[in-house]
């Protein structure tokens, strides 16, 4: 027996994908495989068979009896229908939140999945799920990440054997789109993209992705990671967010346990996940950037950075590198910095000196997804000036701390022809939170597809907004209220990202997985 390393979180009980972005831990290849459970007993037997290889969040490679880093990881998640078919008791099912039971497709009006993002254009697997034939409903997601393609393939073959052994109790669902018109692939692939032959952390528009992840109580390395990732306090310090914002069964930012089903053991250390396949319109993006850069007064790279709030090449935040000159200086410092310092340069910043958005625009991706303390603001005296409204909230980030989301995911496909929006390439994004309605759906509806909280009327987030030709989208790139320069308006923003499918999932703890597999979930 090996003594557990002291840690605030029960890392052995939490599925690994909640705590680790596998892509950044040396697993550049991913495969997302979906199943329909036809029969409860055999479905649970299938779970029992694959449980042994489910990857927990336990730390790899330290201590006297180290947990080895696996060549491939495996993680599980379930839709509401999946839990129902695994025969969870009715009293337990009734305790799940309404939006989880409804699923992503039925929430399309809230999410703005309209026009080319509407469910009728989704990949066949998602079009057919939650439709007429219950045998085609998505019930289980098994996600595999591999250090190599070979390791990934080996784990996938092992999974298929377990499916075969279920004797028809579990059926793999095909219907993923691929290249060259493929419509019926058996799984969704994901992989880190290559840049100059090297694996990188970029997506198809060329941005460095996945930098800002929330830091919450119980995670390791607080002193190194909390600044810029936790919650901003009045005195300028940072504190970890409450664990209950991301894990069920823990106290959240409102000092309550998040809504969760009974029994407590089923929900504790689990969370909810939003799986979204997002297609990226690379030709529209390149064309839009090209068109706007002709009139924009700065460089094309700066304009590209204005869309997301970070420079595309290395993720330098606009708040600390607001123009070409300061970016060159930032790069020089970055090149000399240690890994810890690099991480800090990327994450540790506030909008305190950019309340008017002259550096990082209000409609940029990063500011909309995580406004930090910048919503505690009001109109200043000069035209276009916004100022901090100190003391308006309980803490400066009070509105934001309840809307944070852990993002996991991988690019998929290749943008083979950048002169066309067609093809199969984008991002599979998985967003983790304790409350899909309060966190993901709120951010999507109010901050991505609407701008009122940012005093930006109905301007949408530049990259992810559901821009619609019938109501031409604009975004303001504000100028310094003390300067001479005019703000710049982005006009007729095309739909840059389109939803291709997905659903809402529950990620149980390791304990809960065992209970479900044994049919021992008991709400009484």
């Amino acid at each position, binding site marked *: 027996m090996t003594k557990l390393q002291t840690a605030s979180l029960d890392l052995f009980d939490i599925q690994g994908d909640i705590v680790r972005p596998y892509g950044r831990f040396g697993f550049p290849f991913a495969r997302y495989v979906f199943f329909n459970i036809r029969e409860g007993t055999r479905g649970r037997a299938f779970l029992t068979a694959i449980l042994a290889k489910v990857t927990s969040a336990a730390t790899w490679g330290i201590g006297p009896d180290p947990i080895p880093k696996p060549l491939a990881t495996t993680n599980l998640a379930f839709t509401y229908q999946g839990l129902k078919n695994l025969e969870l008791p009715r009293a337990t099912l009734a305790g799940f939140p309404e939006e989880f039971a409804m699923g992503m497709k039925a929430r399309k009006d809230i999410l703005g999945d309209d026009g080319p993002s509407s469910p009728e254009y989704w990949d066949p697997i998602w079009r057919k799920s939650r439709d007429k034939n219950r045998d085609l409903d998505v019930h289980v997601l098994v996600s595999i990440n591999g250090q190599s393609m070979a390791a990934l393939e080996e784990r996938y073959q092992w999974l298929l054997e377990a499916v075969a052994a279920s004797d028809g109790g579990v059926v793999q669902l095909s219907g993923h789109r691929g290249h060259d018109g493929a419509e019926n692939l058996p799984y969704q692939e994901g992989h880190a993209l290559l840049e100059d032959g090297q694996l990188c952390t970029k997506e198809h528009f060329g941005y460095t992705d996945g930098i800002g992840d929330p830091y919450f109580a119980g995670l390791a390395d607080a002193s190194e990671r909390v600044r810029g990732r936790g919650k901003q306090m009045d005195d300028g310090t940072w504190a970890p967010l409450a664990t209950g914002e991301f894990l069920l069964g823990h106290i959240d930012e409102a000092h309550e346990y998040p809504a969760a089903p009974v029994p407590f053991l089923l929900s504790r250390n689990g969370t909810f996940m939003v799986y979204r396949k997002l297609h990226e319109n690379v030709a529209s993006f390149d064309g839009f950037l090209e068109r706007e850069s002709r*009139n924009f007064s700065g460089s094309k790279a700066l304009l590209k950075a204005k869309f997301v709030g970070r420079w595309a090449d290395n993720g330098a935040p606009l708040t600390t590198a607001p123009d070409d000159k300061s970016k060159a200086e930032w790069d020089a410092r970055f090149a000399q910095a240690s890994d810890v310092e690099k991480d800090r340069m990327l994450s540790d910043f506030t909008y305190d000196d950019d309340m008017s958005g002259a550096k990082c625009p209000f409609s940029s991706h990063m500011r909309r997804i995580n406004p930090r303390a910048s919503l505690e603001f009001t109109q200043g005296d000069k035209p276009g000036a916004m100022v901090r409204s100190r003391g308006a909230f309980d803490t400066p980030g009070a509105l934001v701390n309840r809307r944070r989301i852990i993002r996991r995911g991988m690019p998929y496909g290749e943008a083979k022809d950048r002169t066309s929006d067609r093809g199969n390439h984008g991002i599979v994004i998985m967003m983790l939170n304790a409350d899909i309605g309060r966190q993901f759906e709120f951010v999507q509806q109010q901050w991505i597809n609407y701008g009122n909280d940012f005093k930006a009327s109905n301007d949408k987030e530049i990259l992810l907004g559901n821009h619609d030709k019938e109501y031409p989208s604009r975004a303001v790139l504000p100028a310094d209220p003390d300067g001479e320069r005019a703000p710049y*308006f982005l006009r007729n923003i095309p739909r840059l990202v389109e939803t291709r499918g997905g659903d809402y999932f529950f990620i149980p703890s390791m304990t809960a997985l065992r209970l479900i597999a044994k049919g021992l979930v008991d709400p009484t």
Partner: protein
Amino acid sequence: MGSNVSGKAYALTILSPIKNAYVAGVACADTVRDQLENWNLLQNSPMARVPQTYLARLFVLDDVFTQSLPGAGALDTVSDFLPAVPDGIRRAALPTPDHLKSKYLVFSIDFHGELEPYLRGMWQAIAPEIQSVWQHCYGFDAVSDAEDFVAYMKKCQLTAALFFVGSNDDPLGEQLKALYLKQEFSRFALESQGLPTAELKKRYQEFIARVKPTDLTGPAWTPGQYALLKHSDARQEAAL
């Protein structure tokens, strides 16, 4: 009177008792509710036709809500410490929940100006709709013209202190014009971005000539407008 007024904005709250009766097997309160629901099926509320209306809300109040068993005050507190008090006495000391004497039609509006002219304007604009809803209320049988209506509504009036925050106290026409100008000006700013000064001046003059900023009878939002025009419809409109 002061508490109903904020600057030139007026907050009116009316509670009209609905007859405790039925017609052709349907209770009057249910008929009122059904008629109000029908307003939701119209392109716009009849209240959009009533001059100077900022916001209107109508609903049927069935009864007051009982939130919990009310406490009995001092005796209840004392009896907690003196379990010797028999349960029967304790229960008898609890107050009974309150109920309304009838169901009410609640009519709550914010508008610009003074009460009587507003109510006269309302009668002139939508008398048939008023009659079809209010005929089910006690005392409305005697209402047959604008002055009767004003007198009736004042009898049903409650003092109000809360105002619609989405509006200031300017006349409705000025607010609608201002919203229109704000939207059109941002469109102008977008479309003329980066133009040389002379061209910008010329376009601005054209813009001002088109939107007529000081002319309230010129282009503006219409009362009750709740959606943006589609780009294709807006173009059509501009072409006409």
